[in-house]
């Protein structure tokens, strides 16, 4: 027989990630992403418009509260462009972490009834949110046209920061979703952590508000560097490279650490969930 032999035996300790298997099941990942997108706005009046309204409303509030009343200023471009360019990756990150942390619990039925690479469950929710990120970037494009703010060749570097953001969100999402199966505390911790994250990430304010000796330390928050990177590529804002590079490194570390933790806890899912 040409078919492969599979041995099912106890797994202990750290597990390597099975890329071959993930590749075999790749269509399922596409289906899970498609499902998430399909059901997200079912039975809503505005439908997909929500993915535009959410960051727009957020930007409006930021412009009013922080720019007009509190006197926070951008690092060059109009504040609304500045805020939106930061809010787009942050919203993606924040929604990704929230949704993926709860994804395994929400898919209990799948986890206890059928086999496929479990990593696809958190990964699918994040994949679905990429559509929203794309839409918000399109909205940003429209805003840039409105403000006559030109795009430079720096935009070619955007994929680096896009991938960095996805890696950070996935790594944290993997870890939280797996831990959430063991300890429901994660569910309550996540909104709180994200709220805190918004304040220690230069989304609302430019990074020059942070004392310069703290700036590299700021890079330990992966999203700090990603937000700076997004603004750098899209709006040509100034960038502080030590911070950005630290963040990029953090994105990589978080991704692989999250993946390993997920693989380690994975075998307990069906028994514990």
């Amino acid at each position: 027989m040409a078919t492969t032999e599979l041995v099912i035996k106890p797994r202990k300790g750290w597990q390597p990630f099975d890329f071959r298997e993930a590749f075999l099941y790749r269509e399922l990942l596409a289906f899970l992403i498609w499902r998430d997108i399909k059901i997200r706005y079912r039975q809503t009046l505005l439908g997909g418009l929500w993915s535009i309204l959410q960051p727009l409303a957020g930007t409006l509030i930021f412009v009013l509260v922080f720019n007009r009343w509190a006197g926070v200023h951008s690092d060059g471009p109009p504040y609304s462009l500045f805020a939106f360019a930061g809010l787009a990756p942050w919203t993606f990150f924040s929604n990704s972490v929230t949704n993926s942390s709860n994804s395994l619990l929400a898919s209990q039925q799948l986890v206890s009834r059928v086999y496929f690479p479990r990593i696809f469950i958190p990964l699918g929710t994040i994949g679905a949110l990429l559509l929203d990120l794309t839409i918000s970037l399109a909205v940003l494009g429209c805003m840039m046209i409105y403000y006559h703010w030109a795009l430079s060749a720096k935009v070619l570097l955007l994929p680096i920061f896009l991938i960095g953001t996805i890696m950070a969100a996935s790594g944290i999402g993997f870890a939280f979703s797996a831990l959430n199966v063991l300890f429901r505390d994660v569910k309550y911790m996540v909104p709180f952590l994200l709220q805190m994250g918004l304040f220690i990430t230069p989304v609302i304010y430019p990074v020059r508000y942070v004392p310069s000796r703290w700036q590299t330390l700021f890079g330990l928050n992966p999203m700090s560097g990603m937000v700076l990177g997004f603004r750098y590529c899209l709006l040509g804002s100034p960038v502080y490279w030590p911070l950005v590079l630290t963040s990029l490194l953090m994105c990589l570390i978080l991704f692989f650490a999250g993946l390993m933790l997920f693989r380690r806890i994975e075998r307990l899912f069906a028994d514990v969930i």
Partner: protein
Amino acid sequence: MSNVIEVRNLSKQYRIGGVKTRNETFREFLVNTLKRPLRSFSNSENSGRDQSFWALRDVNFDVAQGEVVGIIGRNGAGKSTLLKIISRITDPTDGYIKVRGRLASLLEVGTGFHPELTGRENIFLNGAILGMSRTEIISKFDEIVAFSEIEQFLDTPVKRYSSGMYIRLAFAVAAHLNPEILVVDEVLAVGDMAFQKKCLGKMNDVSRSGRTILFVSHNISAIEHLCQRGIVLTHGNLAFSGTAKEAVQYYMHRAMGDGDTGTSGNFVDLSHAPGRWAQRRPLLRQLEFCPEDGKSLKAGVRVGAPLTIRVHFILPSPTSSFDIGLGFENLLGQRVFTAHTAFEPGRDHNQVTGPQVFVCEIPSLTFVPGEYVLRVWMDIGQVEVDKIDNAARFEVIPSDYYGTGKSPWNGIFVLKHHWSLVNPKETSEYAASEALPAIKPPLS
């Protein structure tokens, strides 16, 4: 023939503390971790034994290519755990399974169905989750829709489906899986009779096409009809492996408790009946069969012969409101006849308690020859307190019921009836028709 599944020393241990009273929160985890050294210090003797149980213990068997194997066992015998390990949902604690070939498992129909999605969308999603590729689903789409009989609701969200429609669609997808090895758990227990038959038929087709199937069911007649081999699990151990017929006999034999009472086999001990439903109290204790002339039940009951069944049971507290039901089912799982104490006119008891015996006398058992299984249940104050499937099994053997030497085989039961040939001129209809104009043959 080569083995496509090899199970060796397979064991699965569940920690009771790890399943039922798991650390739900991080705080409990911390508290328990801190307490652990103290606990093991204080009662190290008992705790080790009580905290875990083996859902499976040293199970060994092989499945050859193209075999259809039925797995039988009472609730909690480890059937589902075995299927979960083969399906890679949970890891074994010890031992291993080797699987050669593409395996698909069906532990539930409609896994991954999303209520907000339409029937069409769910076919794709469910198919993908069960391991079908997109092109495979597209090529079988029309077949799936035809099988499910829900064409006109294809674009309706499944949350608006009736439960029957939902099951039909779910099974239709599952039935079109095309793996080399199929693992099926109890999925036939759903759906209406006609659809169940259709599913059994489909499974039969699948098994004839040379695919290997592992099949768990409570429906022992389905196991007997579909499977070649049978495996009986008891308390996580492999108790028997042989042909499906032998396995069912072994299982029933245990159910009948022949080994315990020894005598003529007319007593069935129900205290440890494997077919007892979960969360029922073992109040039904024994069935006693009294066929005609003190014969053994094993000899079979002749068509039309009397049969008396004495049901021994226990009433835990004084009551006058209690009922016993006996359901006779044929091998297709059809209920042929229900005997129930509520059908007895003028029943009026005083309050009683403790061991009791209800006697059910059937003057003439008019089933067609064949095997029948008995379901027995008990109500106290209209609440079902005990229920046992496959409580006993007996055979109805041919007899000269009609006194002609001709034995009935078709149908479900026999009935006394009479035929007589009469002279047409003597019937009143004939006299009436005589008064009318003669009936002309139709023009041809």
